[in-house]
């Protein structure tokens, strides 16, 4: 809430009125139509499992890491998936360093629920030795710039990072077959995670009494809107999660309309993510082939030194 409050005092009365009146004639301040999504650009870092997503002005960085840990008692055969959010004060002056704000917690929960409750990531394949060793996958989401609709951007960043993440291959060895050997990436090619489907979060903003609905609100609209709802759906049209936190009530009819819109958007966003991952994967494969010439280059240099 503090994020939204801090946003609203910087917003002038003029802007608030303008956003509302313009929406009455279906005009949004960045020139979009009410049901138009902003342009998404997905970039990947040099390392596996890092992504940077730009949604209009919003920028989110996702980073996936893995660690071998002991599983939870009640689920000895399942890997662990956890999500951490980091709201940098550079992204928005209203984000305080240190203690995570309400928005940070909510964002983490929405992304977490979308991924975990829908069993998008196969956690059973992360088990190495039941009750002893499983992989704990950690997703870090860093908000780099707040241009509104952080949830959707963070969710895409998390998915893109998960899809490009590779965990080292493991095998059991030792005398009793209970020892875990982690193979370095040079010896055995690291393995990708099993991701069954991509739950895409799509946020909607609701504006006062006129029951105006917009998709993908920007930060100025977020400061003005009366309520928001995030629906997490996948390209098959399955509903993975719905988050409606406070604000105005929404009639059932509108929720159904949102879900329909979300399903069609989810399909196009899924395609964008998959395309971006594909491009990254082919590039990575090409780089692996090129590794040979660089080593000969070193040899040449050494000869010159001699």
């Amino acid at each position: 809430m503090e994020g939204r409050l801090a946003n609203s005092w910087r917003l002038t009365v003029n802007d608030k009125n303008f956003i509302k009146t313009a929406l009455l004639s279906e005009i949004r301040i960045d020139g979009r139509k009410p049901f138009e999504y902003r342009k998404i650009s997905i970039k990947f870092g040099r390392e596996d499992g890092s992504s940077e997503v730009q949604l209009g002005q919003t920028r989110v960085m996702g980073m996936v890491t893995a660690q071998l840990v002991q599983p939870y008692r009640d689920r000895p055969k399942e890997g662990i998936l956890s999500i951490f959010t980091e709201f940098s004060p550079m992204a928005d002056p209203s984000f305080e360093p240190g203690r995570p704000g309400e928005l940070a917690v909510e964002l983490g929960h929405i992304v977490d629920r979308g991924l975990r409750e829908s069993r998008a990531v196969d956690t059973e394949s992360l088990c190495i030795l039941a009750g002893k060793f499983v992989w704990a996958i950690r997703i870090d989401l860093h908000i780099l710039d707040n241009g509104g609709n952080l949830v959707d951007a963070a969710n895409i960043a998390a998915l893109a990072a998960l899809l490009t993440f590779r965990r080292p291959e493991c095998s059991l060895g030792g005398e009793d077959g209970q020892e875990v050997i982690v193979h370095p990436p040079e010896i055995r090619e690291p393995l990708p995670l099993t991701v069954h489907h991509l739950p895409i979060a799509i946020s909607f903003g609701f504006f006062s009494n006129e029951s105006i609905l917009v998709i993908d609100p920007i930060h100025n609209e977020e400061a003005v809107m009366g309520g928001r709802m995030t629906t997490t759906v996948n390209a098959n049209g399955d509903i993975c999660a719905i988050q409606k936190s406070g604000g105005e009530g929404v009639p059932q009819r509108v929720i159904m309309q949102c879900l329909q819109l979300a399903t069609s958007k989810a399909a196009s966003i899924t395609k964008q993510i998959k395309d971006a991952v594909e491009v990254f994967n082919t590039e990575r494969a090409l780089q692996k082939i090129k590794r040979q010439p660089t080593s000969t280059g070193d040899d040449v240099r050494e000869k010159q030194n001699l």
Partner: protein
Amino acid sequence: MENKQSSSPASFVDSTVVPGDVVLDLSSMTNQTIKLGGGLRQDCDAISAMKAGTLRFSKPNKYWIESSQKRYVPCVEDTILGIVVDSKADNFLIDIKGPAMGFLPVLAFEGGTRRNIPKFEVGTLLYLRVVKANFGMNPELSCTDASGKAAEFGPLKDGYMFETSTGLSRKLLSSPTCPVLEALGKKLSFEIAVGLNGRVWVNAASPDTIVVVANAIMNSESLSGAQQIIMVDHLLQNIQ
């Protein structure tokens, strides 16, 4: 340092300077009054730069350093757009995108007396002038020009305010008129107020026009003059 002081001051105008550069030497400019704008400070006879940017000179005697940033450093005689954050007995607190809140004395209006103190709701947008900008003090603002007239200063009604960099807002105010405004003005009629603190207010009869103008200005930041005109034409075609 030696050779910089010996070089003629005019040589630094319109060239890039970095913090610490001594751009003017007052001992060689006797019997002159000069006005210092943003980014310059005086140490005895030496005027040195405090930030990186281009040194500008405007006739007859004003010098300042131009650079582009998201935050605004207040400077005397700048015209800015501020947002009312709070009102106290003596001052309105104004957000000016700077390091400190600006103080607008409640009497700093044309014919302002204790009896007719204006009431501003939190979030009101004001067109203001910076009167004092000293270190360690909150900048003092005013809604009058130097002679005490209201001029164009005061609250702005309706319209839409958006944020730009300080560099872009200076470009919008430059003369000859910035190409993006020139191109927009040929086809559309709108009102505009540009604050040097990187805020721009636009008003027009229809919300369409406001959105087009606002987006055209925001897009123009990194474009050359010719590109700006092409971009505006393209935007205008889309709405017709």
